[in-house]
């Protein structure tokens, strides 16, 4: 822990054109986390790596079975990961936050959210069984880390037909901004933003405050998982806490890309129960 030097201090703290020791070790998940010596990341636990990796994008094929699934019926979802240059099927993955594959599924109206973990089969395909509640477009954010590569965060699209084909919505999801306290099954969560109205392109600090704090525990190796989506499903962002220590406050930093409405799903675990709370925020244009 001592070896870990975080230069990225809180926003607006010291000016640092000062010489820093050469911080050659970097967290593959979060390039802000650096260290002079080998070790693991204090935010996500990944082993720090040395050197500069070229972040190549892997291929990812999505397959549904049946190909024309019915709403609310089980569908088998398969993913095949392919090496970027050779196109060969990738079979080995790093374990990140206790799983080789994290999948988030969002419906077009943003009223459906799922955080799932497809499992790797003998045939080298990831699979899981889903139910898509309504006809329409679903965006699937896939988070995985092929061995020897770099962490991937790729989106795919599933289209679920209705009885008469598919009607895609041409309007953004309806969101109503509000930071009133939200309740999960065994936890209440408050959200405070700084600045109060986030500005597109600028850092927003998000302070989640949870209560009660007794029995608060990590969910899949992290104090919290956060997913943000714009109302048009163009920006889908997965984040982990910037600061969290098991106490009542969990801080995330995020740059909201555009001046639109965003929905946030924050997940916390208490006494073995996962609490998923939803907040909508409106992001403003830089004046």
């Amino acid at each position, binding site marked *: 822990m001592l070896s870990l030097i975080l230069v990225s201090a809180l926003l607006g703290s010291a000016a640092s054109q000062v010489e820093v020791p050469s911080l050659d070790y970097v967290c593959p998940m979060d390039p802000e986390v650096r260290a002079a010596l080998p070790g693991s990341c204090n935010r996500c636990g990944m082993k720090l790596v040395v050197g500069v990796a070229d972040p190549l994008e892997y291929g990812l094929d999505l397959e549904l079975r049946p190909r024309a699934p019915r709403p609310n019926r089980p569908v088998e979802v398969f993913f095949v990961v392919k090496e970027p240059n050779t196109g060969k099927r990738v079979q080995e993955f790093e374990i990140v936050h206790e799983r080789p594959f994290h999948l988030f599924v969002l419906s077009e109206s943003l009223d459906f959210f799922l955080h799932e973990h497809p499992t790797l089969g003998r045939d080298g395909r990831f699979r899981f069984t889903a139910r898509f509640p309504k006809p329409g477009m679903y965006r699937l954010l896939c988070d995985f880390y092929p061995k020897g590569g770099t962490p991937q965060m790729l989106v795919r699209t599933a289209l679920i*037909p209705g009885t008469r*084909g598919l009607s895609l919505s041409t309007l953004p999801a309806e969101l109503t901004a509000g930071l009133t306290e939200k309740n999960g099954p065994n936890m209440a969560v408050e959200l405070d933003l700084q600045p109060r109205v986030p500005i597109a392109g600028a850092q927003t600090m998000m302070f989640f405050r949870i209560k009660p704090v007794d029995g608060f525990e990590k969910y899949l190796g992290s104090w919290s998982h956060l997913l943000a989506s714009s109302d048009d499903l163009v920006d889908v962002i997965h984040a982990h806490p910037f600061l969290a220590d098991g106490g009542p406050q969990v801080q995330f930093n995020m740059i909201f890309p555009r001046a639109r409405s965003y929905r946030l799903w924050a997940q916390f675990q208490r006494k073995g129960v996962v609490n998923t709370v939803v907040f909508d925020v409106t992001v403003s244009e830089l004046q």
Partner: protein
Amino acid sequence: MAMSIAQDLRKRAGHVWARRLPLLGLVVLSALPMNAHEFITTNITWNREISRVFHRRCISCHHSGGPAFDLSSYRQVRPWAEAIKHEVLERRMPPWGAIKGFGTFQNEDALSETEIALISSWVEGGAPQGDPGLLPKQTTVGKAASLPSGTTETLSLAGGTLTLKQTVRIAAVRPETLPEGASLRLIAQRRDGAIEPLLWLYRYAPRFRRTYYFKTPMTFRAGTKIQMVPPVGSLSLLLAGE
């Protein structure tokens, strides 16, 4: 150029500094030249991460003598930092014009979510240059995808839906007449009910019109419906030869 530097300064002053130090920030900034010491709050640097992304995704157009101004060195890039962040977050640059993950393409040159986050965090953190020893050795300008030739036949889709009369292999999609700023999704509804995403155009910019080549040509049987939502203009579907 002078104009955009001024703009850049104004933006920086406006939101990185002024939020915390409303007066001081502005005064100090306007008194300093561009490369003066700034608050650096990030570990991401040009020499380490950002130059690599730019070489892959920007330099093919942004080099001296190219179609857009030079962005191949820190000195060229730094004055544009705020504008770069903005263009990248709004998905106007690189001008791919489509949303990733809705169809897969061989000539796709959009930024990944990770690259967008990297660039915007770097600019927000003061856009530092970093250790010169880490600059990439050779500059690999993004390889131009070798696109299939012999795509001669086209089908035209003008608004709404096209029902295929025979089995075809679609190699690519090309916007024809679409209003500036239009967004649309193109999908294929197969006879068995399966629906596939083909292309999601986002805020169409006619000056960056291009052809979208699928990773592999897609085969659709007679009766498949190709549908544009909303039906705002016309597209060509380029058919693959044998």
